[in-house]
């Protein structure tokens, strides 16, 4: 099985202060001053793919078959793709050190940031080019995210699409067991065949870390740079990113009162008498 995992490297938006956002709204690119991070949902997808491969290889080895047996799902090959600038290269090198079989970057410095249709075209074209069987990516990509890319990719490839995926396991029959968030709970299903899986709030949210030895071993491996034109996207198709029309700070702070400075028994009495009792009386 050939798995393609798509990921996005974004500025660490949490490192920006309100004053910085005001400058962004005024047209200044404050995001160039902050560290780059993996989109957290993509990070889950990258780690889930590694765990899937580990499990399949372990099962194959345990069954006494060679890892590359050629049996469906007998091995998992991992490939990673990102669209962006060279600041994504350290992350691609990390993936090589972790055992991804190949990594690629489509150079496009912000050109496709607000162009989900084009982004999906690029990903779908690359998936076809690499004959991928399964495509994983996060179901959200951060500020400015349209939420459309996974579905547009699936539509382009003619594959099923499932979003909110939280878990991914190989089943004994060589299929995939999926868990995804559905309403207030979760649902499970068995997947056979190709699909686009958009990873949501997975329990697995952190990518493992390669050792220095792992990095040394893969230092000579290259990052495949794939031009937009090679994927059928031409410069004239890349309309200048939708401009930022405006920014509004959403105040998500919860209203609250801090009670402190007194013994716990007194605090508990204050909480009960002054805050909870009135609520109980009115309910």
């Amino acid at each position, binding site marked *: 099985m050939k798995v393609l995992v798509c990921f996005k490297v974004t500025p660490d938006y949490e490192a920006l202060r309100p004053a910085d956002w005001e400058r962004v709204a005024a047209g200044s690119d404050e995001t160039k*001053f902050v*560290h780059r991070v993996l989109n957290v949902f993509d990070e889950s997808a990258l780690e889930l793919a590694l765990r899937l491969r580990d499990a399949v290889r372990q099962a194959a080895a345990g069954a006494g078959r060679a890892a590359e047996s050629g049996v469906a799902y007998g091995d998992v090959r991992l490939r990673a793709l990102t669209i962006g600038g060279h600041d994504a290269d350290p992350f691609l090198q990390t993936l090589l050190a972790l055992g991804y079989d190949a990594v690629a970057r489509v150079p496009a410095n912000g050109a496709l940031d607000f162009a989900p249709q084009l982004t999906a075209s690029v990903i779908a074209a690359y998936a076809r080019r690499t004959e991928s069987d399964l495509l994983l990516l996060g179901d959200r990509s951060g500020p400015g995210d349209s939420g459309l890319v996974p579905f547009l990719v699936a539509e382009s490839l003619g594959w099923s699409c499932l979003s909110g995926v939280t878990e991914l396991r190989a089943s004994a029959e060589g299929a995939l067991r999926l868990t995804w968030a559905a309403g207030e709970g979760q649902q499970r299903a068995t997947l056979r065949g190709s699909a686009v899986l958009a990873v949501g709030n997975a329990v697995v949210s952190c990518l493992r870390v390669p*050792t220095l030895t792992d990095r040394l071993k893969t230092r000579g491996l290259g990052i495949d740079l794939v031009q937009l034109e090679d994927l059928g996207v031409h410069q004239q198709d890349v309309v200048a990113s939708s401009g930022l029309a405006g920014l509004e700070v959403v105040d998500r702070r919860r209203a609250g009162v801090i009670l402190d400075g007194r013994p716990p*028994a007194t605090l508990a009495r204050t909480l009960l008498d002054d805050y909870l009792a009135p609520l109980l009386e009115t309910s």
Partner: protein
Amino acid sequence: MHMSREAIVEGLRRLLGAESVVTDEEVLKHASVDNFRKLEDIFGVYTRPLPAAVVMAGSTEEVVEVLRFADEHGINVVPRTGGTATEGGLETDEPNSVVLDGSRMNQIIDIDTYNMQATVQCGVPLQVLEDRVRELGMTTGHSPQSKPVAHLGGLVATRSIGQFSTLYGGIEDMVVGLEAVFAGGRVARIKNVPRRAAGPDIRHIVIGNEGALCFITEVTVKLFPYLPQNNRFLGYTLKSMKTGFEVLRQVMVNGYKPSVARLYDPGDAGLHFSHFAEPDDCVLAFMAEGAAGISAATAAGIEAIVGEFAECQPVEGKLIETWFNNLCWGPDDIAHENERIYQTKNVNRTTEISANWSRIYDIYENALRRIVTEIPDITMAGGHSSHSYINGTNMYFNYFYNVVDCPPEQEVDKYYLPIISIICEETLRGGGSIVHHHGLGKARVPWVKEEYGSSFFMLEALKQAFDPHGIMNKGTIFPSDVVK
């Protein structure tokens, strides 16, 4: 005479009341460790002897009662406030110890803007004090990474240092006076005066004692004008750590006092500056602050010094400013890091040392080479200099490793202590100090005699004089053969 656990708890309840004596097992487990055994804490594995109780002292008088009781009955007491110590100083080395927690003593007693000093109880979080004085246009000047969660008592007890130390100094330069309670319940108040030469400076018996001599109940620290509008940020990339150390040395020797003066090696720089630094780049970062003229002159002086080194390439100051604004770790950052460690079993540790300018590079290089070649499963090893003086600087070794085929309770023995051992060996061999600001705790006690050499008897005498029954934080700072 050893008391039973139940007798200890009953005795403490009689002294302070039941509501101040916590015996909940989960609380006791957390109180038996500090960040030295953070992996065990994250995985809910606790290997230290469980204390008998955590006592929440509400006043100096209550601290007196507890220490008197403990001294009378030979009970080990571990003083604790914010709990952010990193070297095992807060571990309970003996069964049925008493953790004496001062975090309820959280009142800001006085802010004196004329004499430029603030007096607080030991349990005041530094961030709380800092926020309060900033409202008055002042700053404490003390900004360790743990500022959002650390308390003043612990910061003084560990002889801590902050990110702006090159300008404001370490905690030892900031403390004006204090109050502490010694074993047996004796209270000492050291008054708030600018300087005195009435014998040795006894504040230094308390500052850095890590709870092995006394319990700090009150602290007075200096205040400084807060003038962030004059902050200037400078940053440079370069290829050589040797060059970087020489730049820092010249900045200090020429009398400039930027509040921040840091040199990152490529490994450590990669964690912070990969958005503008190449993988093999070192990074120099400076911040000048203070009155407008001073800040401008400091920045200009640094620029002139760095300009003499052709390999140093300037970067936009805003890059350094943005990095600087995100240096401190609050509870949410700690929680996020703990989750990362839990999922990946990749642990981040730090060990800081100091040495003269002529020795620091060799110590850094030798220690790093040994860490990378002798320790398995290393995922990153590097470091930075962050506190410079006219005669030398510190080195903050920063390293990550995967914990492989090893239960959480064995991580310290398999990875952390061997790395500490390498760093301490190389530092002592190079004539440096094995601990710059995290404190000895229990982790570095094996090297304390070599650290002090012929002066160790002076340290030993302090323990024998101030804690003759050896009840104060056994195993911290002083080897077991010192404690009678």
